[in-house]
């Protein structure tokens, strides 16, 4: 009876991979909060956090400890179940998208060829979109369960913003998919590695639209309307304290890492090292170098995110909606049409 035979080693392999990726993402997110403060400081001629440990490197742990030690406050009038569910959902959705990101090709270990990707599903990018839109529930439920006017308003803003920008994001993505002809992230990356130039060369406009929408999806400045400090009093997580607040803030950073990784995979060749033919190297070395390349790309994207955050102010709400519906969506549509026309022309 081997109809439902389970490959136990594969299962263990995947579990180990999941553990590594989740903890690595959390670790990177931890230090992203530190990097954010350092980048902000450096861009404003300040030294930034520099007291905890050498160069302030222990600061994220001090922050985490502070958040955990704080008093947990659940408002009387809130819906307690949803109130607790909100931050958990935000964090889960943020972490789930790392399942389909190809971190590198494959390593050969214990006589097995191990793919450095949790699941190479053929609808990888669709899965990412599905999970990302679940992240809106974190904001919505958090804002709703707080039973606070400002939180609710912020949640509404967040939800409408995410929905409007997801459209343009999807449309700009279609142009990439027309070039690659596949929804699997691994296939898209491998196409860019083999001879093909990076997709950003074919799709510069698509990349800009995708980048702007990714910023809006992550609720980063200039699109941080859901957590507008000065007008909505910290937005949807206003009533949260302690680690539940920490989860919300942390989820934002995890989201940032994931969207950077997806942008790197879609437009910048993922784990491809420019001007180097990886197939000439031993597979293990190539895999490790590939992880390094992808991480470098992610770090660069995160720096750009932060750089933008500390440069430009927030959009007004009507400007945000105008930009999303009246500019990005038509632009993305035009981009899609032109790409389609060029592909048709080249095939003839």
């Amino acid at each position, binding site marked *: 009876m081997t109809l439902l035979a389970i490959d136990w080693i594969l299962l263990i392999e995947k579990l180990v991979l999941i553990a590594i990726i989740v903890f690595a993402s959390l670790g990177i997110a931890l230090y992203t909060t530190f990097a954010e403060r350092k980048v902000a400081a450096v*861009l404003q001629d300040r030294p930034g956090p520099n007291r905890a440990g050498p160069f302030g490197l222990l600061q994220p742990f001090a922050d985490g400890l502070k958040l955990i030690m704080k008093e947990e406050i659940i408002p009387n009038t809130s819906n307690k179940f949803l109130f607790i569910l909100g931050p958990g959902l935000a964090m889960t959705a943020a972490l789930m998208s790392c399942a389909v990101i190809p971190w590198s090709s494959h390593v050969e270990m214990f006589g097995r060829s191990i793919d450095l990707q949790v699941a190479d599903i053929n609808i990888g990018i669709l899965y990412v979109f599905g999970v990302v839109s679940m992240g809106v529930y974190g904001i919505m439920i958090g804002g709703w369960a707080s039973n606070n006017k400002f939180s609710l308003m912020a949640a509404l803003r967040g939800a409408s913003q995410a929905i409007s920008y997801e459209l343009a994001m999807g449309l700009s993505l279609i142009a990439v998919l027309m070039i690659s002809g596949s929804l699997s992230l691994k296939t898209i990356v491998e196409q860019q590695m083999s001879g093909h130039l990076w997709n950003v060369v074919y799709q510069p406009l698509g990349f800009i639209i995708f980048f702007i929408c990714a910023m809006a999806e992550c609720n980063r400045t200039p699109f941080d309307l859901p957590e507008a400090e000065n007008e909505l009093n910290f937005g949807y997580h206003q009533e949260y304290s302690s680690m539940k607040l920490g989860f919300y803030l942390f989820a934002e950073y995890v989201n940032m890492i994931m969207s950077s990784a997806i942008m790197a995979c879609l437009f910048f060749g993922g784990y491809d090292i420019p001007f180097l033919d990886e197939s000439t190297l031993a597979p293990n070395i190539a895999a490790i170098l590939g992880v390094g390349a992808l991480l470098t790309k992610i770090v660069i994207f995160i720096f750009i995110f932060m*750089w933008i955050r*500390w440069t*430009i102010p927030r959009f007004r709400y009507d400007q945000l909606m105008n930009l999303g519906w009246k500019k990005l969506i038509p632009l993305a549509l035009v981009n899609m049409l032109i790409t389609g026309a060029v592909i048709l022309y080249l095939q003839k």
Partner: protein
Amino acid sequence: MQALTNRARTVSKKPMSFMERLYLPAIFKGMAITFSHIFKKQPTIRYPEQKRPFSPVFRGLHVLNRDEEGRENCTACGLCAVACPAEAITMEGAERLPGEENKYREEKYAAKYEINMLRCIFCGLCEEACPKDAIYLSETFTPADFSRKSFIYGKQDLLIPDPKTEPEAFAKARGEHEPTTAKPN
């Protein structure tokens, strides 16, 4: 309406041009500006390790002075307490006993001398009022503390170290080696 200054300018309400509506050129310009700040010098003074130099006329924490032989100058005349606009100084005088000539310079001395640092406004009038050069304001400031009581500085907190037994501590309290904005002469 007439403008109060010649700097008044009317707000331009003309619609944005195409380049302005693109947002991106302006954003890149702003990003270039913020990026250039990475290489700028930080004006920050990293306080406990690095100290901002004080002016030699800075009025900081009070010091009760001693003469070269290490005797207290103060005679508890009370002129500083009278001069004090914040009424921060209280003192009790006592008469010098035979055999204490090496401790107090004159026949009378301050047995108790207290300054409430929360009341003190660091105006320096006590320093001006003192006929014996016994009190002056140094170039340090009052350290922060957790209780009100600890801000009432007694004689032990204020008295300068003995120049004969502890010359280094004396020089430090005089602030002779502290960074200063005074021009070297």
